[in-house]
């Protein structure tokens, strides 16, 4: 069975095909949920973020011209929604430098349904500033190139490299 290309599904969803849209969601909902968990540190915010991301994607679907991959465009929107979430929660902080996690309380779902290393990784990522955290996320979990990361975050390639190196130097204590 051949899988339909993302662009084809987008086209069908734009024509009002709900099934195509749900197919598109099912392809990326897990990735977006896990993205939300690593970026926010808890499953509730991750679920809210995922929903916001898909609503925003559907609203902007007509703007997708197919110049890049749908995945890259999706992560760009996800990053914007994540920043928006942080701005709502911490309106007086500098978004790129903010280090405190969105929710200070431990996430029970993570304790129950996740392994030790994943929990440690998630907790360690919450100590990073949002800008560094996003670069780590996109590089190691999104598997994007530095050029793609720079494009998605509206920063230079050198800034992306610098943020990643700084993040890994900082993560060393938490992961050990």
């Amino acid at each position, binding site marked *: 069975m051949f899988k339909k290309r993302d662009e084809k599904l987008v086209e069908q969803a734009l024509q009002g095909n709900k099934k195509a849209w749900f197919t598109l969601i099912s392809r990326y909902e897990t990735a977006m949920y896990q993205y939300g968990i690593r970026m926010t540190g808890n*499953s509730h915010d991750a679920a809210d973020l995922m929903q916001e991301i898909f609503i925003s994607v559907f609203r902007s679907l007509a703007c997708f011209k197919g110049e890049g991959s749908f995945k890259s465009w999706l992560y760009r929107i996800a990053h914007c929604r994540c920043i928006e979430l942080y701005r709502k929660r911490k309106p007086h902080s500098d978004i790129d430098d903010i280090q405190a996690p969105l929710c200070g309380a431990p996430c029970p779902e993570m304790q129950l349904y996740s392994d030790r290393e994943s929990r440690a990784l998630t907790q360690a990522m919450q100590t990073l500033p949002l800008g560094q955290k996003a670069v780590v996320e996109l590089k190691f979990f999104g598997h994007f190139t530095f050029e793609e990361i720079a494009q998605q975050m509206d920063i230079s390639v050198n800034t992306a490299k610098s943020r990643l190196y700084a993040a890994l*130097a900082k993560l060393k204590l938490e992961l050990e």
Partner: protein
Amino acid sequence: MTLYDKEALFSAYLDNSLDSEQEKQFNALCEADAEFAQAVENSARLNSASASFVAPALPQWDKEQTFFKKDEPRSLSSWFSLPACAMAMSACALLAVLTGAKLSYSDNGVALTFSNNGANTVDKMVEQRVTQEVAKALGEQRDFYQQANQTLFKEYAQALSAQQQQSSAELTKYLLASSREERKHDFAELIKFINEQRIDDQRFYARQFTRLQDEIDDIEIGYSAVNLPNSLSDSGVNGRATNYSTVPSTQPYTTNNPQSSLDD
């Protein structure tokens, strides 16, 4: 090695694009720089963690909320179907303006009064506006004509001044020429007068000489007849008389054309 070089080397390592030279530098840096080595180790652990990341199961969520009918662009007819409330409010506002409605507050309460001369008020406003516009237009016209007149006057004054200068020059030239001519005539008259005077003088002297000659002749005749014999008178006195008689009696005093000499 600078931090920038480290970041570049680390990025090349992550992209698997290290050449042999960079690989040597990378290995040397891993041994020499603990922080760099730690970053490399963390990247390896993150790579493995990303593959085996376990997250809580995806919750049941309402996907239907993400699918909605998008707003269709407004058709032309929809712009004309304005809410009735807005239309009614606009009509009320128009009515209030035309009837001169006035809401006044006092200690006794609030009073809504309608002015009888609402139309007059509108007429006054229109008249006032027309007056203002007319005054404005007149002012503009006046300024325009004023500027035009000033320009014309300036040009006229310049032309007049030039004409006066030209006339003065011509008059001066004429005066000089006429005075020269007059002087010439005056001198000619003077010379003519002097020449006439000289001719008169010559005539006067000629008459004098003639009279003197006559007197001398008379004296000579009388003297010879009374005192001297004819022979004596012929030899002595007559000799002098002869000398006298040799003088031309009526010969005018000649000049070498004085008129012409003076004229010259």
